[in-house]
């Protein structure tokens, strides 16, 4: 998969530190499962976590804690490896997302939002929204800005906005400085996974009217 748009380093740090909202962490994990470059970047960023751990002042641990754990080791089941990286076949949902929406992008129970737009909400704890969005070919998403951050991962199809063209596997990692209006390419509809850490801010009157409906 040829991926041109990657995660911002600062987003990767938040992900690795465990400080992203659940929804945004899900989008990041899904992108990483598709993107070798960001996978390498995560490994480097995790080494920062390792160095921080190594320099921690040690807390007190009682000797009985060690005794207890040693008596348990023989009964511990050995862990099986998890499958974490996506194979390339189109239509398959990347592994981190599967426990939320199932295995196939073609068997999703869409809810119609407006002509050309459908969505499924993904339940995630905490602040912000996480949702799968399906947009028909040639449609434009209303111009909007963000109070916080917004992550958009293309799972199928492509769109273009003020920043560039985004295709399968690409991620748009935007903060409150950016206002954009994605236009879906004409040959194929697109499916994307979007997460925000606060509500979006639509910039047109129509967008403001629709906001209660779209929920972003």
């Amino acid at each position: 998969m040829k991926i041109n748009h990657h995660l911002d380093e600062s987003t990767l740090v938040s992900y690795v530190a465990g400080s992203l909202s659940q929804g945004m962490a899900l989008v990041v994990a899904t992108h990483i499962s598709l993107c070798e470059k960001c996978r390498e970047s995560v490994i480097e960023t995790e080494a920062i976590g390792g160095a921080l751990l190594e320099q921690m002042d040690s807390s007190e641990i009682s000797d009985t804690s060690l005794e207890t754990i040693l008596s348990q080791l023989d009964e511990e089941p050995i862990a099986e490896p998890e499958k974490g990286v996506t194979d390339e076949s189109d239509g398959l949902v990347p592994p981190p997302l599967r426990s939320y929406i199932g295995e196939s992008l073609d068997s999703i129970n869409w809810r119609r939002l407006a002509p050309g737009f459908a969505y499924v909400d993904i339940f995630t704890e905490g602040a912000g929204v996480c949702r799968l969005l399906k947009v028909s070919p040639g449609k434009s998403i209303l111009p909007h800005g963000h109070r916080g951050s917004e992550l958009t991962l293309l799972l199928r199809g492509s769109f273009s906005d003020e920043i560039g063209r985004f295709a399968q596997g690409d991620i748009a990692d935007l903060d409150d400085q950016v206002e954009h209006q994605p236009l879906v390419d004409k040959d194929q509809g697109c499916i994307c996974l979007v997460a925000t850490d606060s509500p979006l801010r639509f910039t047109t009157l129509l967008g403001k009217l629709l906001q209660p409906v779209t929920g972003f």
Partner: protein
Amino acid sequence: MEDWTGTLVKMASTQDKSLYVLLYRHFAPKVKAYITRLGVSEATADELTQETMLNMWRKAHLFDPAKAAASTWLFTLARNQSIDWMRRQKYPEYSLDRMEKSLEEASDPDTAEKHVSSYRMTQVINQLPENQAQVIYMSFFEGRSHAEIADRLMIPLGSVKSRIRLAVEKLKLTLRGEA
């Protein structure tokens, strides 16, 4: 400096409990200190530390020294254990586990080098300008999102991100042995 990565690899292949004790004595107090800083009670920190250290035993055969030093791997185990406890949902992750490699491939010539840079990294972290170190600490030890850090420091979101980027750039150069 002890080669903890080598010790972990050896423990995985031999199931030698005396090696486990060495690793436990070194890492458990640090893991507990990290978990405590995330803001949980002493009793919970003890419990999560024990779970993390049990996972070190259960998952040791999945540890890949080509990808990470022992301290890095322990950090990810402790992080996942804490987040899964704090949230009802499992923290979304792709797997850093070894895919399909035999144990013979596990001994890695780069291991020692990684330890040097981990030590060097600690120095570089300590030399970061205060405003960069602050955002790194708030991310890693307080679990704060960019927006929360921006609110707390009363600076724009963009400034939080650029401070983190500047800090990470220096740290990664160190890691690659270029600084």
